[in-house]
């Protein structure tokens, strides 16, 4: 994280804000909610209290404007610069401006820029934070669409704002009645995927070239291959030579770490993640509404509590689910399990005589992973072609 030169900050805990005007892209209630949630992010980790004014001069004046709007930083039309804000101070100090030429949205179900995310970032500036070069941090300068339903402030941003204001005092920073204004669609779902305590620090990142490296799940995603283990993900892209390492929460903050299985249906631009008896569908960063769903919806008997691995055959339009020493075949056309399953893996895939941890398809081959080994199988004749180390994709 960084701060502005000389680290300007508000010398008081009670900071006022005022919303001067609205964007026609969203209802006024949606704009109010997005900005209120954004303030709540910061007040929940500092002693700061934010009070809204409806007239007169507030510390943080919030407005939407296009092109030249009276300060030295004119906006630039659609794209490019989305918004900016000024560090704490008198006059324009603390003020936040949104570029009205952008299309502002409430949730990521359609194109546009999520006002809550951008507001939360700009309010970081209004409180004294500069940009962070930590990928995935809220104060990272580049816009990244994310699922905002259970959005949590990343640790780098918490460290930054607490360096300026310290941690919160015991009493809640917001009057209790405010949060209830969240619309039901935004309230955490009963089956919200993140079940573990909130402050979980990721375990040590496994080494790329550890000869004993195993994976929880592997899938393709828009031409890349994603390897999952615990809270970590390795990304192999056809466009960049080096492997990129991230955490799952960087892309899908509301999904719990430790997937069981994952597969991509390329034609629908959709990846399905499995954990225990539930599964989620995502499209890029966006978790599809209506998920998670119980895996029984796919046609598994009740005796199946979780699955080991899944792979989608793009040519046959079938998805294979692996559980123990058996596997099921799911017909994506009819959206139902094929008759005659489950079958023994070893019978149909000679040479694969064990359980499967993870699987994915690339070109004419399936790649099955078991422990620290990987098995390349020719899809057409289901013959084992060769065995490799599980991390052979990492150029060790």
């Amino acid at each position, binding site marked *: 994280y960084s701060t502005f030169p000389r680290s300007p900050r508000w010398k008081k805990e009670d900071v006022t804000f005022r919303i001067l005007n609205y964007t026609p892209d969203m209802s006024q209630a949606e704009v109010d909610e997005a900005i209120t949630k954004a303030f709540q992010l910061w007040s929940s980790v500092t002693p700061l209290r934010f009070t809204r004014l409806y007239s007169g001069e507030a510390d943080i004046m919030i407005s939407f404007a296009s092109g030249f709007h009276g300060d030295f930083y004119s906006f630039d039309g659609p794209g490019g610069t989305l918004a900016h804000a000024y560090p704490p101070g008198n006059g324009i100090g603390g003020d936040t401006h949104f570029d009205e030429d952008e299309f502002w949205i409430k949730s990521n179900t359609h194109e546009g820029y999520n006002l809550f995310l951008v507001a939360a970032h700009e309010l970081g500036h209004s409180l004294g934070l500069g*940009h962070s070069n930590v990928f995935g941090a809220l104060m990272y300068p580049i*816009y990244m669409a994310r699922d905002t339903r259970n959005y949590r402030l990343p640790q780098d941003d918490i460290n930054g704002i607490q360096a300026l204001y310290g941690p919160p005092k015991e009493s809640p920073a917001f009057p209790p009645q405010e949060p209830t204004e969240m619309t039901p669609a935004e309230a955490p779902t009963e089956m919200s995927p993140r079940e573990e305590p909130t402050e979980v620090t990721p375990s040590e990142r496994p080494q790329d070239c550890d000869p004993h490296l195993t994976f929880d799940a592997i899938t393709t995603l828009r031409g890349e291959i994603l390897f999952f283990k615990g809270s970590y993900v390795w990304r192999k892209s056809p466009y960049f030579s080096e492997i990129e390492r991230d955490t799952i929460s960087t892309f899908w903050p509301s999904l719990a770490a430790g997937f069981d299985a994952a597969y991509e249906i390329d034609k629908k631009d959709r990846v399905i993640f499995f954990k225990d008896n539930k599964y989620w569908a995502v499209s890029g960063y966006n978790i599809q509404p209506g998920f998670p769903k119980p895996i029984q919806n796919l046609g598994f008997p009740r005796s199946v509590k979780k699955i080991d691995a899944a792979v989608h055959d793009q040519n046959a339009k079938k998805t294979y689910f692996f559980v123990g020493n058996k596997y099921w075949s799911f017909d994506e056309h009819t959206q139902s399990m094929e008759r005659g399953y489950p079958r023994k893996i070893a019978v149909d895939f000679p040479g694969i005589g064990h359980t499967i941890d993870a699987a994915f398809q690339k070109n004419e081959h399936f790649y099955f992973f078991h422990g620290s080994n990987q098995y390349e199988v020719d899809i057409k004749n289901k013959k084992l072609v060769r065995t490799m180390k599980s991390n052979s994709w990492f150029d060790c």
Partner: protein
Amino acid sequence: FPVAPETEKEDMQFAQKYLENFYDFKEEKNFRTTHLNPMADKIREMQSFFGLEVTGELNRKTLDMMKQPRCGIPDVRS
């Protein structure tokens, strides 16, 4: 995806504006320098900030990063 400017010259102008806005680049008219490309230092600074390969050259990945929608506050300040 970002819409790419058509010509290399446009790319360079785009990059110069970006570095002026966000990396405090100042093109000194009578700037005598041993650098063939006075922007190279600032390109290196931007590449380092975003964890890109630090080459000082305006390569495709660097340009793609510059075209991402972003906040209007500078990344570095003098």
